[in-house]
């Protein structure tokens, strides 16, 4: 656990009454219901809940990646004075990859198989910092790759995704997502597909990014022990509804909602007492 950032820090992201509903299979299906929370500067916020509870949909909503045609969306996601849920796509694109980045659960398939790693890490630079020269871009990309713990970044720069392991690919994703030092990094189950050792390394990396660059992280997981190790605050979601939230130490030591209690009871004791 780390010290929580000063609570008087004003929120950089405010989500009010977020409501997401599919209407593509005839009968409507509510996946997120009246969800409200705030993300403060430089904090790590966990979202936990069993699979299907709407965590990924919430994450995609913040990252501006929802398919708005298939969904009814209401509420607001306020960032930098703009409602990300209802603003135009062009406005959204200004923030994507620059101020708000996202990494995903599937490192094996989230990179373009035909494009060199370096090009993919640099992509946000090409889009948001068109004035940079190729050499400057390369320098920044390699710096981000080194910071993401990729050994020999100069060499990895010229490689293709299939030449890297899942853990390495997730590091590439992280390098690409943080190359512009965004204010918010959304990590949707970033370690679920990885083995335990790699998992721990990625968690440590996220902690470093948060501490060094003051990047606020929304960390989504169904693994409570990971959330407890990493997050300052936590939101517990169930069937699209936030059933409990608070400082993560507090929530895990003293769960109030029966669903949270059940989740906490399911964590092996060894992990809890660590």
């Amino acid at each position, binding site marked *: 656990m780390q010290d929580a950032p000063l609570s008087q820090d004003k929120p950089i992201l405010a989500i009010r009454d977020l409501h997401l509903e599919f209407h593509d299979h005839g009968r409507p299906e509510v996946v997120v219901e009246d969800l409200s929370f705030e993300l403060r500067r430089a904090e790590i916020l966990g979202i936990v809940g069993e699979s299907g509870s709407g965590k990924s949909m919430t994450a995609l909503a913040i*990252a501006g*990646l929802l398919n708005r045609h298939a969904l009814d969306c209401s509420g607001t996601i306020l960032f930098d004075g703009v409602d990300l849920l209802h603003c135009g*796509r*062009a406005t959204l*694109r*200004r*923030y*994507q*990859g*620059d101020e708000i*980045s*996202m990494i*995903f659960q*599937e490192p094996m*398939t*989230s*990179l*373009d*198989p*035909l*494009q060199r790693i370096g090009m993919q890490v640099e*992509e*946000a630079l090409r*889009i*948001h910092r068109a004035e940079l020269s190729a050499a400057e871009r390369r320098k920044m990309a390699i710096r981000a790759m080194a910071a993401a713990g990729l050994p020999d970044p100069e060499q990895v720069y010229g490689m*293709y995704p*299939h030449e890297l392991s899942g853990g390495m690919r997730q590091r590439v*994703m992280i390098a*690409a*997502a943080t190359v512009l030092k965004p204010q918010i990094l959304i990590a949707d189950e970033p370690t679920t597909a990885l083995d335990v050792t790699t998992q721990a390394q990625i968690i440590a990396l996220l902690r470093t990014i948060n501490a060094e660059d003051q990047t606020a992280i929304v960390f989504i997981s169904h693994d409570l022990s990971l959330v407890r190790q990493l997050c300052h605050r936590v939101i517990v979601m169930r069937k699209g509804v936030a059933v409990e939230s608070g400082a993560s130490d507090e929530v895990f030591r003293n769960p109030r909602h029966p669903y949270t209690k059940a989740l906490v009871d399911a964590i092996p004791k060894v992990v809890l007492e660590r």
Partner: protein
Amino acid sequence: MRYVLKKTATMLATLLVVSLLLFVAFQLISGDPATRILGTGATPESLAVLRSELGLDRPLVTRYLSWLLSFAQGDPGVSYVYNQPVATLLATKIPVTLVLAALSFAFMCAMGIPTGIICAKYAGSPVDRIVMVANQVIMATPPFFSGILLSWVLGMGLHLFTPGGYVSYETSVPRFLGYLVVPCLAIALPRAAQLAKLLRGSILEEAGKNYVRTAYSRGNNTSGVLFGHVLKNAFLPALTFLGMSLGTMLAGSLVVERVFGIPGVSSILLASIGNRDYPVILAIVVLIAAVIVVVNLLVDILYKVLDPRIGEE
């Protein structure tokens, strides 16, 4: 580089096997060319003389090897019927057919690729639906039929084109190419429709993949995602189709040459089949096989260039 060498070796081996099989097959079905040339009334002595002149008294393998040697040097033998070297007979005809096929191929790409991209980008829109229905019809229309239709509409109706007004490339290259436009359209249309459909489907399939979501998360707009990522990936399945298309284009050329009165390989091939003039048939078929095999080699190399995952041991 090693990959290219390996593929080239495979290609040469394929060509050898194909030519051997064709050579043997033609020998077996050809009956006795000497009798055909001299007629059934010829004496056994004169037949024997001609056979040894044609080299037909030597063993099959020897004949194949000597044929192969001279073929490789540009001399595929002498026609039984015209009493002329096959090379002379084909010299002015092969370029016409090759240009017709190559131009049709270019037309196919020029029509099929943009149509596929546009339909994928606006999938489900009225434009997409109309084009896809039209596609279905065009796909089912064979080149000889669309050829007749096109020359009727463009020729008789709009006077943009003179059916039967072929101009040799020796007379005027622009007018030669100008005459080929309509025949090429006829050959290219059905394949272009297929290509558009294939590419559209392949783009839409790629669009659902995870790397596309990643590309959007970095601030790309739809064009950025399409041209920066999706298109290259979606093009891979289309590449095999492109390679196979050239064979189809050659076959289509043979038919369409008849419809439009173009003096390519078609007329002499059909005449030679009628006359059982096997040296000519063999030369044409082996050449077509060679073109197809070389195109396949190019496709393999292109795959390797586009897809880093290929050819790694």
